[in-house]
């Protein structure tokens, strides 16, 4: 009798093993690699940290699911993280490495327009889809049909800022911008165009050059003298806190309006709550957005990274990755060309910042949130603006 049990259990075990082997053999495809390019070191290392953390969250979700299912075949996904030091030439090196050495199916990042403008031609000529995360400059997707982005474009932000300022009843505005930075200049131009079209008046425009400027008093004194009703400062993350402090020191008490580069808790910490309160900025994403998908993302991020709240860098990196994964899922052929075609056809994909559709010019159509700093220097969700 005992013998029969032994034989039976061996048989059962064998059939289980065979069936497991059969299932995995029939449904598992080759491992696909996705390249992730971000400034892990260098002047923008803070952004790099959020980008890597955002993509790692997606990686964990995919690992739990075993990969991406395309037409009944499960493809495991491997992420290759590379550092571009926020430099153009290093970005071209990284793109070459990911495309020709790691043979990735697509690239997420980098976050800076100037870097993807330098490296974009490499992805285009190799026919490898690349999705910039925070690359808001219009020229980025004009490099070719393999270039995409996860964020909205500069003119849209400038337009939102202008619409918001006019809607709040500000009849005059001043601008302080970095004329050496494509992002800052793009927002400035779009803001001026939209604001003047609405009937507003730009009373003072002040510019400075370079990321290493620490003293803005000359420009801010002139802005203070012009007595605007609001000041638009679409500048870089490391410049904004000093500008806010110095603006208040120069007697500028009117609301300050910023672009999505302000979207990091560190801005308020360095600038000081008493200086930054009342200021607003445009953001791709608000962690206070009551939408359930947004709330799930925020909670997962907090759990994974010691309560750290995700910023736009993290959300856009996550969404760029999610767009690529969605494209792999729907691709007619699982290769770079197939993924590119599927990327261009993404429609109504529900992501943390809202529903995303890839438009004609490979720019996503998605909403923008307006956030305001309160008395404690915490940015709170004010309202959502749609294109």
């Amino acid at each position, binding site marked *: 009798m005992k013998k029969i049990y032994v034989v039976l259990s061996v048989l059962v075990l064998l059939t289980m093993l065979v069936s497991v082997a059969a299932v995995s053999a029939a449904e598992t495809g080759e491992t696909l690699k996705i390249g992730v390019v971000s400034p892990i*070191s*260098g002047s923008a290392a803070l952004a790099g940290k959020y980008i890597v953390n955002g993509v790692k969250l997606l990686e964990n979700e995919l690992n739990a699911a075993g990969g991406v299912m395309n037409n009944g075949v499960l493809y495991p996904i491997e992420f290759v993280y590379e*550092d571009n030091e926020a430099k153009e030439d290093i970005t071209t090196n990284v793109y070459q*490495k990911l495309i*020709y050495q790691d043979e990735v199916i697509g690239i997420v990042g980098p976050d800076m327009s100037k870097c993807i*403008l330098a490296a974009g031609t490499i992805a285009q000529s190799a026919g490898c889809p690349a999705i910039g995360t925070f690359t808001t400059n219009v020229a980025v997707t004009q490099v070719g049909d393999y270039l995409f982005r996860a964020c909205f474009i500069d003119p849209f932000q400038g337009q939102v800022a202008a619409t918001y300022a006019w809607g709040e009843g500000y009849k005059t505005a001043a601008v302080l911008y970095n*004329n050496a930075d494509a992002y800052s200049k793009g927002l400035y131009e779009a803001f001026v165009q939209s604001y003047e079209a609405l009937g507003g008046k730009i009373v003072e425009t002040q510019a400075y050059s370079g990321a290493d400027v620490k003293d803005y008093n000359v420009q801010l004194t002139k802005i203070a003298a012009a007595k605007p009703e609001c000041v638009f400062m679409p500048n870089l993350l490391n410049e904004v806190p000093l500008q806010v402090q110095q603006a208040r020191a120069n007697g500028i008490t009117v609301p300050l309006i910023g672009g999505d580069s302000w979207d990091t808790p560190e801005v308020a910490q360095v600038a000081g709550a008493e200086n930054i309160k009342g200021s607003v900025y445009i953001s791709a994403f608000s962690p206070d957005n009551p939408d359930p998908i947004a709330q799930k993302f925020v909670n997962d991020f907090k759990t994974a990274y010691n309560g750290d709240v995700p910023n736009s860098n993290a959300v856009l990196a996550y969404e760029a990755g999610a767009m690529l994964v969605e494209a792999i899922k729907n691709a007619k052929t699982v290769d770079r060309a197939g993924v590119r075609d599927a990327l261009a056809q993404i429609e109504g994909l529900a992501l943390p910042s809202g529903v995303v559709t890839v438009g004609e010019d490979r720019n996503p159509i998605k909403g923008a949130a307006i956030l305001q700093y309160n008395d404690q220097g915490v940015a709170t969700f004010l309202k959502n603006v749609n294109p």
Partner: protein
Amino acid sequence: MKSIIRKILPLIGVVALYYLIMYLKSIKVMNPYHIQVLMFAGVNIIMTISLNIVNGFTGQFCIGHAGFMSLGAYGASIVTTLIFGGFSVAPNLRIPVFLLGLLAGGLVAGAVGLLIGIPTLKLKGDYLAIVTLAFGEIVRATLRLIEPIGAARGMIGIPPYTNFAWVLFFVVLTLIVARNFIYSKHGRACIAIRDNEIAADAMGINTTKYKIISFVFAAFIAGVAGGLYAHVMSFIQPDTFSFVKSSDLLVYLYAGGTGSLTGSVLGGLLLTVLPEALRAFGNLVNWRIVIYAVTLVIIMLYRPLGLCGGKELPFLKINRKSLYEKSIFSRKTIHPSEISN
């Protein structure tokens, strides 16, 4: 016979190196990524040699060398992209246009080098360093404001004419020209200024003139290197040539060893390839730059004069014995008129 071998052998070596790399590329051991890293290494080697002529051989301290590089990059790109229309150039005219662009880049950088060299090279030490630093920033700030070349956004659509063969060719050409300059009458005058400027002055050397000659010569080479760089990247932006670039070049120079062409080649090559090679340790990507910096500290601790400070490979040295034999001092009788020369 021996001297012919000394001259020919290194050139054969270079050609063999080229074919080896092309072979490795054809059997897919090396991919476009490796080739591009080598091209950047080549451009950095040329820049380091150029900086070495000023800092290493003439003893001046230039810390704004990226300024000359950007002038060359923009000068060359204006010729190839704006004047000759970039990609619309007929295929058989591309090489002449490219070479013309590089020449223009070199000339622009050289001319500006002359212009700022005349007033500044009367300064010494720290003061010269500050002026060259300011020069680099002035170039960067000016380029940001010129709209036809893209201002702050940078210049796009530069045809990628530079390939590995051109980079290798210009590295070898720069080495030969630099070697011949250093061991010429002018070069030795520069070395005399470096070793002791007052003594050189007392010996009848016009120190300001030779300082300007070496400065303009170095600026020209940096301009050509900038032109090569622009045609690898096909996109240039003023901020690419910031003080960070200048200080990278100083690191290549001092890690390789000042006053040594071998050192410049080694410094430029190793320190360009090392940060990329460290990518092979996948999980260490966050530590890449830390390891790079620690390596630099170790190099400077164990080789305070740089990897090859003051030392040279045989073919980069002049044959002192043959120089002596040709000179008037090896002869028994000397005509008085020869001494006055």
